[in-house]
């Protein structure tokens, strides 16, 4: 079964995951992953708990491999596996699958509400006449700003361009459609405008045990500049993005590869553009000392509160 991604029933979990993402672009990776795992559990015909306990983790590792160890997807898979571990006690494979399907479906349905809850908790921090600095494109941040606009608050937004994929431009388009005055700022110009900014918002790929943040490259820099200028730095994350990692440096992330920025030999006619896109990291780690508050669907918390929530969930 190891190299076969269909588990004998013709169900390809990675294919289903990609299809879900394509169908609904607003869905986040961990939710799509759980949705695919639920479908897998529905389709599989394991008759013993041991079989089930092999199939599901195998599917999780396939998903992780296919998405290059995406942090948020790993977080979602871990939540699903933890739930399975909880439900597997004292039940038959069939009962466990049924309960798992139910829990998973409720989770997927509730996930949309998570984003709304984050927006509810966070929008109170956006006040009239504020200048906000936003890093890259994040659906949670957009949700929060949309809510603030609905509450008739008047504010302006600087969006970082966020190279190399320039996702900041997408954010600027959406803000313009909402009627919020916005400017796209070079990643390098963040220090230049920081004095004029009232608060900084960043989304999250994952929130680690120490309360630190894993997010699009450039977040760490932004946090350092914000701290130096004494501006509050707020991170927005749904609770299913809390991961059981404890990185001590940038290079401790599971997405780290040794060939990133490794001074490989270059040709005299090297295409630096292409090389830049290939050798640069996409994620970085922001330590908890630089984060003022975290807005999650569990409430507003200081970074020290994250490990408490993780312990409550994972150690029952």
């Amino acid at each position, binding site marked *: 079964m190891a190299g076969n991604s269909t588990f004998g029933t013709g169900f390809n979990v990675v294919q289903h995951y990609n299809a879900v993402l394509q169908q609904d672009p607003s869905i986040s990776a961990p939710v799509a992953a759980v949705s695919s795992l639920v479908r897998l559990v529905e389709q599989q015909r394991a008759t013993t708990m041991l079989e089930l306990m092999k199939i599901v983790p195998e599917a999780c590792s396939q998903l992780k491999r296919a998405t290059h160890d995406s942090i948020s997807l790993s977080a979602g898979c871990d939540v699903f596996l933890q739930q399975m571990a909880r439900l597997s006690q004292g039940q038959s494979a069939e009962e466990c699958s049924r309960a798992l399907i139910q829990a998973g479906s409720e989770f997927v349905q509730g996930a949309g509400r998570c984003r709304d809850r984050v927006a509810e908790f966070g929008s109170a921090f956006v006040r009239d006449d504020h200048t906000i600095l936003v890093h890259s494109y994040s659906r949670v941040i957009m949700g929060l700003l949309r809510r603030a606009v609905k509450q008739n608050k008047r504010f302006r937004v600087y969006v970082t361009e966020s190279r190399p994929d320039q996702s900041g431009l997408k954010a600027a388009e959406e803000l313009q459609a909402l009627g919020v005055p916005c400017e796209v700022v070079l990643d390098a110009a963040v220090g230049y405008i920081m004095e004029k900014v009232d608060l900084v918002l960043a989304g999250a790929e994952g929130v680690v045990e120490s309360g630190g943040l894993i997010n699009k490259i450039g977040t760490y820099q932004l946090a350092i500049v914000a701290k130096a200028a004494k501006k509050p730095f707020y991170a927005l994350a749904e609770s299913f993005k809390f991961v059981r990692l404890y990185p001590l440096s940038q290079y401790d992330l599971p997405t780290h590869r040794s060939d990133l920025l490794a001074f490989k030999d270059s040709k005299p006619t090297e295409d630096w553009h292409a090389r830049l896109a290939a050798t640069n990291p996409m994620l970085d780690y922001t330590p908890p000392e630089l984060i003022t508050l975290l807005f999650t669907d569990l409430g507003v918390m200081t970074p020290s509160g994250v490990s408490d*929530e993780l312990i409550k969930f994972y150690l029952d």
Partner: protein
Amino acid sequence: MLPQELLIFNVVCRVLHIVNEDYSSVEVVSEGGTSNKKKGHAGGGGGGGGAGGAMKGNETPAMGLGQAGAGQPRNLGEQVARSMDRAALNAFHLKSLVIQEINDYMVELEKTEEEIADNAREHIHSNEIILTCGRSATVEQFLKHAASKVRIHVIVAECAPAYDGHEQARALAGPNIDVVVVADAAVFAIMSRVNKVILGAHAVLANGGLVAASGSHTIAAAARHHSTQVVVCAGLYKYSPMFPFDDDRFNTLVSPDAVLAYGNGDLVDAVDVCNPRYDYVPPELVDILVDHTGGHLPSYLYRLLQENYNYAKDLAWSMQDE
């Protein structure tokens, strides 16, 4: 619509928490008698194990951190309606339980200052020079309790324009305490000779920041510069589930007459005079918060808030969400 007077709001939230907590514990015991450890005990609950989705027999536990919270009522109206639906049977037991708990809470409130003062010996040592500011009954009792065993020197900043410091000095003066009153401007100059700063607070906000007497921020900043410890004595009822969205949200201005008398006619017209009542002290400047259970770091505050206000969290947020 935000509450202005934080302390009243804190007490309301605490009482609401008591009621909800008792309700959950009564509900579990009455339904099928399977006492669930997670729900029964005080202060636990919250997040994944909360009233909404905890395990009952073979019901599926909610998945995801705090997904159970998604089912919680969003405002006071809903909370009450929901409780009323199910509470008819349990009202009799619930009432006496709640009344008893509220009475316990009242006793706790009355004994707060005494219990905080009991911690004084841990923080104050013989012959220490302590700086304080303004008038605070909690700090006064704290220092007097320490002075009953060891000799201490207290420097009180006078806190213009109310000059509360003078009253505090008069209250503190006694055997074993040497009191000196200094002008607010002299605080930085003498800070190098001070061993410890002990402040009172009007309220402690959810991020660990303080709403304290005007002048406290300056003192705390001077202390940070000299790496002097800042100890804040505040009863549990002062810990608020509110976050400060900006520094002056919980501040009020009182009469500027004390700063610039109305008698100076021409000057009063030409000049804008402010007299803020409170100061916001950011959490980075506070080292220890002392309440009746002992000393805590500001970063531990989320835990205290969870234990004491968890069931009222949604109320607190629905009020902040304008």
